[in-house]
């Protein structure tokens, strides 16, 4: 085999590998994504990332229409919470915890409400006016999906 043929063959193989990887990644992405969900009575469609940080940081307590925000989260060490902090808020779980603790133990604010499963999260967000939370995939119309920009 000539050198040029060998190189062409190698490149074709590599190209096939790269394309396979890209397709696999694209297929995998929807299952990795995390969706921020809210009660259907919430009127906003999307939130800037700094507003999302303030809401989940328990510092922004009302929606633009004045409705009280009710925050639902998974426990600190839950993999979904870790992924949510990193991928959606671009923070680390310990930073949110420190922010909550500074509010809680100075009397300046309250803690978010903890849930233990995605079913519980969806159920509570669906039935609590002003609620916001997050799940891996919200296959239901009972909650509103909010995009973070």
């Amino acid at each position, binding site marked *: 085999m000539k050198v040029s043929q060998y190189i062409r063959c190698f490149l074709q193989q590599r190209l096939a590998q790269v394309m396979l990887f890209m397709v696999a990644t694209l297929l995998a992405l929807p299952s990795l994504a995390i969706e921020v969900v809210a009660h259907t009575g919430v009127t906003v469609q999307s939130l800037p990332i*700094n*507003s999302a*940080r*303030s809401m989940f*940081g328990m*510092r*922004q*307590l*009302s929606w633009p229409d*004045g409705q*009280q*925000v*009710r925050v639902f989260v998974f*426990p*600190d*060490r839950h993999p979904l919470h870790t992924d949510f902090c990193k991928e959606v*808020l*671009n*923070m*680390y779980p*310990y*930073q949110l915890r*420190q*922010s909550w*603790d*500074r509010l*809680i*133990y*100075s*009397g*300046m*604010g*309250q*803690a978010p409400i903890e849930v233990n499963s995605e079913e519980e999260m969806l159920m509570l967000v669906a039935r609590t006016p002003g609620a916001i939370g997050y799940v891996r995939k919200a296959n239901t119309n009972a909650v509103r999906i909010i995009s973070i920009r």
Partner: protein
Amino acid sequence: MRFALFPYASALLALALPAWGENLTDHVQTHGFFSHALAVTDRNQIGMAHTGRWGNMLTEAGVNTTLQASPNWLVAGQLLWRNDGVEPKKLRVDCAFVDGTLLNENGHQLALQVGIIKNPYGFYNMTRDVAHTRPTILLPQSLYHDQGRNFFLSAPGIALHGREEDGANAFTWQFNLLKPDVNSPNMVAFMVGPQNGQLQGKTSWLGQMMWDRDGGRWRGGVSLGSLSMHYQPNPTDFFGAGRFTGAGNMTLNTGVLSLEYNLERWSYTGEYSLTRQMRNSFNVPGANFMDRNSTLEEYYLQALWRFRPGWQSILRYDVVYVDTADRSGVWFNQVSGQPASQRYAQDWMLGLRYDPTVSWSIFAEVHHVNGTAWLSKLSNPPATTRPRWNMMSVQAAYHF
């Protein structure tokens, strides 16, 4: 004064209760904490830990309740019990206030707080008595010296606070007008020496502007304050000269610069403080230093490493000079006859923390200290102190 606030809080609750009906419990939260620390030293005493013998260093317990009546109304109260082996053990109201939002729109927040309120000072003061919110058992004693803690604790007052958001940056600010609750034997010993008179807080202020970027990747801030008090001597003070001396006045004008950089596994923190101490009217015969103004310099640098889930280690260098014009304490030693080491402290600390669950934390740390500036003068009579000393400490902490 303190308990007079409760009728107001109760009245507010009574007015608001009918509006929530059966959903009231959704708006009320209760949290608490408990911690106990043991220590051992090779010289000098801290808490009830003596040289070469493990002893109790610090026990803290507290409980709080908050009622977030609406996004615009918050009522909060916290009780704290603390035993450091020096101060009298007592239950204190750590905070009890009503917070009302005046403005909340488009990233601008402004609120007013009235009652027994928490004072902002540096990164850690607001929750200084809650073990799991501290990176170590002892906070850096340069800025957060426990002997002067009463200056910075909650006090009756009024606060205006707010938050501004602008893209990746958020600014949180607070301005407190307060009357510090400074009268404690330890505080008298710290400010005046081991005397029997009374300290009385005068109207003072503390303010803070904190900045964070990218959700807290960078945090920084400035804290400023002017804290005033009055010392009424006991006739037995100053070897019997107390009956002839006037009442002393002290004002501390203080400022802190704080900066922190947070990564997934590492956090780097530093704070630097200068405090101008102004004193007058003591007029103690033969002790002119009682009326001498001075500048305190305090700073620390720390690196924290989260090396495994639930585990972290920390290294800190923490320094205090009580008088920048006399860093070695030599002049103080010459005019007072007391050890020079009372005027400085350099503390190298290495610590380890393990959180087996979200609610429990176990701490261990060692300190290598040169100087005794932040040791309690009540449990360490100046003539008996040794300038170079080491300490080891362990702590268990629980919170809910």
